[in-house]
């Protein structure tokens, strides 16, 4: 690369990366700094350095309970997204062809582009007692049932699975599509049965896509706060709502920053663990 080329490349790259620095990387560093303060350093407030925010988080079991709860929520939502999404991606990638595939694929991805909040609120109307689901089931079944899923953990999981399912379908679809048909043919001609093909051949090949999808679901779900609040009722307190409260209601920004930072650390560990698979999926 010549000197002129280097300058040109730099000129092209600098604006985007400067922007990312100001709007993402510096804020993340600032948060680390804030999490070590006693008070927000605005106006005339007195502040000093402390690790009290971290000792508070690690010393008080409430925070650990909520973090664990959010991690569990992330796990279950990811689990259901994978279980529901894989067959869907399989059908789209391997069983449908041409125009019907394109149309159905678009149909699966489209809901993703509607306002997430309103979708969650609509679930409330569907799930509550005497709501749409209750009435629909009662219209079909000859006996009376009372379905009221609103304000429960299943409600949160349903809402979140709905929000994130398209991610998994998309990433899995891409990796399934890349599998060479002749491989499966070969396995079949050697007498392998479907469960075995699925387990020994398809799953390993689809794994990068599945893991990429899982990460794309798990990470935001662990930090979710609006879905649990709206659908979970009394079960709706999560690590995410705790952080939201520190910033929006209680005005304990340093504690909120410490909580955010710990979540960031957890997320980074998970991303690091998944990164080999992610790199594979990206190529």
């Amino acid at each position, binding site marked *: 690369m010549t000197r002129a080329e280097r300058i040109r490349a730099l000129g092209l790259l600098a604006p985007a990366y400067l922007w990312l620095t100001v709007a993402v990387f510096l804020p993340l560093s600032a948060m680390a700094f804030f999490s070590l303060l006693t008070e927000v350093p605005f106006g005339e407030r007195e502040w000093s350095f402390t690790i009290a925010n971290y000792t508070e988080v690690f010393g008080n079991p409430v925070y650990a309970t909520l973090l664990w709860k959010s991690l569990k929520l992330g796990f279950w939502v990811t689990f259901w997204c994978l279980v529901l999404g894989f067959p869907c991606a399989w059908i789209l990638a391997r069983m449908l062809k041409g125009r019907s595939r394109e149309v*159905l694929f*678009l149909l*699966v991805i489209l809901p993703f582009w*509607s306002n997430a909040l309103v979708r969650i*609120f609509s679930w409330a109307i569907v799930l509550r007692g005497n709501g749409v689901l209750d009435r629909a089931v009662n219209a079909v079944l000859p006996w009376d049932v009372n379905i009221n899923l609103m304000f429960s953990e299943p409600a949160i999981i349903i809402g979140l699975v709905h929000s994130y399912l398209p991610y998994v379908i998309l990433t899995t679809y891409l990796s399934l599509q890349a599998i060479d048909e002749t491989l499966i043919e070969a396995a079949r001609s050697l007498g392998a049965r479907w469960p075995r093909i699925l387990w020994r051949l398809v799953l390993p090949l689809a794994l990068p896509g599945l893991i990429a999808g899982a990460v794309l679901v798990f990470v935001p779900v662990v930090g979710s706060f609006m879905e649990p609040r709206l659908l979970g009722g009394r079960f709706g307190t999560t690590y995410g709502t705790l952080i939201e409260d520190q910033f929006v209601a209680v005005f304990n920004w340093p504690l909120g920053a410490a909580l955010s930072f710990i979540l960031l650390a957890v997320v980074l560990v998970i991303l690091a663990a998944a990164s080999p698979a992610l790199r594979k999926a990206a190529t």
Partner: protein
Amino acid sequence: MIVVARAYLGLILVFLYAPIIVMGVMSLNASEFYALPFDFSTEWYERLFANEEVLAASWRSVWIALVVATVATTLGTMASLALWRHDFPGKRILQALLFPPIAVPWLIIGTAMLVFFFGIGLGRGTPAVVLGHVALALPYVIITVTARMQSFDRALDEAARSLGARSWTVARKVILPYASPGIIAGWLFAFAVSFDQFVVSYFLAEPGDSTLPVLIYTAIRKGFTPEINAIATIIIAVSMTLMIVAARFARFGGTR
């Protein structure tokens, strides 16, 4: 087998579309409390067009998204062309740096931006929202444009250059036209990211100048009328149309 497959796909589609359909239907239900049974009324659409707060927030969201998409697409296209065309030490690191805005939960990024913008005296407001949204949209643009450029035949670039064309001319006459579907798709992505962005806006929007998703969240928590369903139905119709257009450019799901 294909019947079972289609039935399964149908069930998934029912699951995906049920709340969206309910939302649309409820925008035409007379009851303010979302009570059933259904009673047809267009009252909420009439009320919506008289509700200046919702309309103002909608327009604010639209023009913020327009600004964000344009800025992010310009910067992102520049960066991705540089990343595609040149090889230099540290390139992998630069590529890796695109992931945090996508992979770190928005809750963390949003609160971090709030803290930082307050720290430097920018505070809340539309400039902060635009600053944040562009950063979130940039990686999507860069990834989309880069993906498009991967199929570019580099021999073309070299041929043009060996014929004496200057670098800028090559970029304008050969590379940019080739990249344009990716650029358009990137712009639409960026627009959607900004337009539907709730978490970051929630922490950065100034009271009284909130964007539509923020208004919807406060409405849901503090008092919600079917007017919100009406505006959301309109938005879904618009963004789905946009998405279909984007899909035509990016060819998602098509054979590679």
